[in-house]
C-alpha cells in the first residue's frame, strides 16, 4: 500500500509519450491568363445634342467614360472602335451627319491584391470617349426635325 502511494506521488517525473510531426511538401501551380472585360453599366451615350442643318460651328459631344477591368498589372495594347457602324478610327454617320470619335489614353485605377481573406479586384482602365461633328452639314431628314437618333458603337480593346 505504501509503495503504491509513492508511485502515484512521483508519477510526473516518469518519461511521457512524445507527439510526432512530419511534413510532405507540394507545389500549388497555376497559369494565369490575363484578361480585360468591359465593366460599363447603364446607358452610356455620346450625345451631340441638336444639330441645325448647315450650322456654322462644329458640334461637340459630351465625354463618356468606358471602363474595363483587367488583370492587375496588365494593360491592353490598343483600343479601336467597331467597324460595324463606322471606322476603327471612330468616324461614323448618324442621321446623315458625319462625326468623329476619339478615345483618350486610358487611366488606371489600381485594384486590390488578393489576400487569404479576400479575392482582390482588378485594375480599372478608363477610356474617355468624345466626338465632334463638322459644321455645315445638311443631314438626312424628311421632316422639320428628326431625332434624337441613336447609333450603337463599341470601343474594342485588344490585349
Amino acid at each position, binding site marked *: 500500500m505504501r509503495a503504491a502511494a509513492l508511485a502515484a506521488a512521483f508519477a510526473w517525473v516518469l518519461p511521457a509519450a512524445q507527439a510526432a510531426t512530419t511534413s510532405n511538401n507540394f507545389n500549388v501551380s497555376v497559369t494565369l491568363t490575363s*484578361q*480585360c*472585360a*468591359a*465593366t*460599363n453599366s447603364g*446607358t*452610356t*451615350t*455620346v*450625345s*451631340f*445634342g*441638336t*444639330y*441645325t*442643318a*448647315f450650322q456654322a460651328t462644329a*458640334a461637340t*459631344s459630351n465625354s*463618356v467614360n*468606358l*471602363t*474595363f477591368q483587367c488583370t492587375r498589372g496588365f494593360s*491592353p*495594347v490598343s483600343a479601336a472602335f*467597331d467597324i460595324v457602324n463606322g471606322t476603327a478610327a471612330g468616324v*461614323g454617320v*448618324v*442621321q*446623315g*451627319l458625319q*462625326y468623329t*470619335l476619339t478615345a483618350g489614353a486610358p487611366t488606371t485605377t489600381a485594384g486590390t491584391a488578393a489576400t487569404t481573406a479576400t479575392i482582390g479586384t482588378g485594375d480599372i482602365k478608363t*477610356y474617355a*470617349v468624345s*466626338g465632334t*461633328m463638322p459644321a455645315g452639314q445638311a*443631314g*438626312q*431628314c424628311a421632316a*422639320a*426635325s*428628326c*431625332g*434624337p*437618333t*441613336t*447609333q*450603337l*458603337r*463599341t*470601343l*474594342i*480593346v*485588344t*490585349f
Partner: protein
Amino acid sequence: MAAGAVCAGQAGSTFTVEVTLQGAEPAPPQPTSAFCHVRNMPGSYGAVVTVVCSTGTVVEIGPPADHASWLPIHGGSYRFLPPVSLAGVMSPGSDMDTGLGTVTSWRVFKVSDRDFLELTVRW
C-alpha cells in the same frame, strides 16, 4: 499559329451615339417696306431695267404692254411718260391714262425735240 504564341484577346464596351437633327434656321421675317436696287441700269431710254426688292417682288419698270397692265394688280410701279413737248404742249392724238397713285421716283430726260418726264407711280 506557332507553338507558344500568345493569343490576343479583345473586349468591347458598347455605347450609343445620339443626335437630333433639325432643319435650317427659319428665314428672318421680311421687312414690310421694300428696299430695292437696280440690277442693270444702262442709262439709255427704252432699255429694260430690272429692280430687285428685298421683299422678293420684282418691280416692272418700263412701258406697260397694254392698258390692262396699268391696273394695280401687282402692287408694283410703272413708268409713265407724259407726251409733253418742250413747249408744254401735250402731243395730240395720244392716249392718256390717269389715275391716283404715289410718285415714287421721277426723272427728266431729253431727246431731240422734247423732254420726257418719267414718273414711277405706285398704286
